[in-house]
């Protein structure tokens, strides 16, 4: 269970989060939607402790995210970054197996490589990409490598920051199914950020919409279409007219 309570975060005079509240029950899949630049990535990074919120509380299973053993805390998470964030000095398989090659989850190299190749296959990549470097791959392939890295150590909690942005519709479908599978099979708790409404419908148990630094609407995905919330409606239908200003 992840709980954000009244979280505020500003960068100088840019007030990004202004009292965000969000609850993600264990083993469920939450999808956060919202315009670009509304602070979705910032919210994820606050939970992970990569960004320190100015005020507010963040608890993971009742434990304060900012306190206690950081290594043990982070070992429970997998994260797919918006831009992939692959280590360009390491070949693909070492990126995927990064956690398995060092630290508390360290395995023999052969085994780590096998796991990496298996995870690559799961995200639709062939074995021959394993020894290439991230810079040699297309954007979509990098994204999938990032995804493979996020799931490599079978984390309890997985964050996906725009997993399908930049992928073709077929690959988006594959990734959506994969995320759904991971959540149901592994029983993982997932938080996904996306703009892609087909992703929302494929992945989400619950949906939350971030706007103006707060969660504007949240509820089960089944209630999303009949919410009656003008902000959510505008976003779902992609209208230029509505309460959300197109110029931000």
């Amino acid at each position, binding site marked *: 269970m992840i709980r954000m309570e009244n979280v505020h975060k500003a960068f100088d005079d840019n007030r990004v989060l202004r009292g965000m509240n969000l609850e993600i029950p264990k083993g469920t899949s939450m999808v956060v939607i919202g315009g670009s630049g509304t602070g979705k990535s910032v919210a994820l990074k606050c939970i*992970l402790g*990569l960004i320190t919120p100015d005020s507010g509380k963040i608890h993971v299973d009742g434990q304060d995210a900012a306190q206690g053993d950081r290594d043990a805390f982070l070992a429970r998470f997998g*994260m797919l970054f918006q831009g992939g964030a692959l280590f360009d000095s390491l070949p693909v398989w070492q990126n995927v197996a990064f956690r398995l090659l060092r630290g508390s989850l360290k395995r023999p190299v052969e085994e780590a490589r096998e796991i990496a190749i298996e995870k690559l296959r799961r995200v639709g990549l062939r074995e021959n990409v394993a020894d290439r470097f991230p810079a040699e791959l297309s954007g979509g392939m990098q994204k999938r490598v990032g995804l493979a890295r996020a799931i490599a150590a079978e984390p309890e909690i997985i964050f996906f920051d725009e997993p399908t942005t930049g992928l073709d519709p077929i690959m988006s479908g594959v990734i959506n199914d994969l995320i759904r599978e991971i959540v149901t099979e592994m029983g993982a708790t997932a938080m996904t950020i996306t703009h892609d409404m087909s992703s929302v419908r494929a992945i989400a148990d619950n949906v939350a919409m971030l706007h103006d630094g707060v969660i504007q609407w949240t509820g089960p995905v089944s209630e999303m279409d009949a919410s009656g919330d003008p902000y959510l409606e505008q976003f779902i239908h992609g209208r230029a007219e509505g309460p959300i200003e197109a110029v931000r």
Partner: protein
Amino acid sequence: MNLFAGLAGLGRSVLTLLAAFGRVALFTLDALSHIVRPPFYPREFGVALMHMGWLSLPVVGLTAVFTGGALALQIYAGGARFNAEAVVPQIVAIGMVRELGPVLVGLMIAARVTSSIAAEIATMKVTEQIDALVTLSTHPMKYLVAPRVLAALLTVPVLVGVGDVIGVAGGYVVATENLGFNAAAYLKNTVDFLEPLDIVSSLVKGAAFGVIAAVMGCYYGMTSGRGAQGVGRATKGSVEAAAVLILAANFVLTGVFFSI
């Protein structure tokens, strides 16, 4: 009114500068402390050794040989004005070993190594690779900073030693080929004149400059702003800061070694 505003501005700049010094000092202590605390990353250390040490040899060698040669010519020409041409071997040796060897190698390392560390780490920061490291339970100070600082601490003194030898050799070649010095006498004068303290001071300076070069690269990289512009600023700032600090440290260390 104007004077007051000027004073306030001056005060602010001084405070900003002091705060920056404080941050750099804390960063340096933190970096050094991670060198001795596990986990260690031998692969990263090996790569850093290779880049800083082995691959810096050509530039260090070229810098030293030309400087040593030019030094011999200058001392000969200057010495000739009061019939002291014979001091060439001694002054080349002392000039190279005490001053020019460490300073020039330090500055070359600032140009070559500091810039590349800063650009690499800043790019990692900008592309969220540093965040990714953290989420993969890997401490960037340990994984990125400590191996580089340790490698610089160990390799730059060696590079300085190599630079000293090549610089003296450059002076020797010019002196014996162009200035008519006797080869055996030149070598004997050089060896007899140099004191152990000269060599120790040279290597200690090398170690200090190495740490400065690596730490400034890492610090500017880790604190880089966003985007390509952030990377550019970090790189420029790191080289400026490393070069100035190396020259300042050289002054201080020269005082410590030779004025007592």
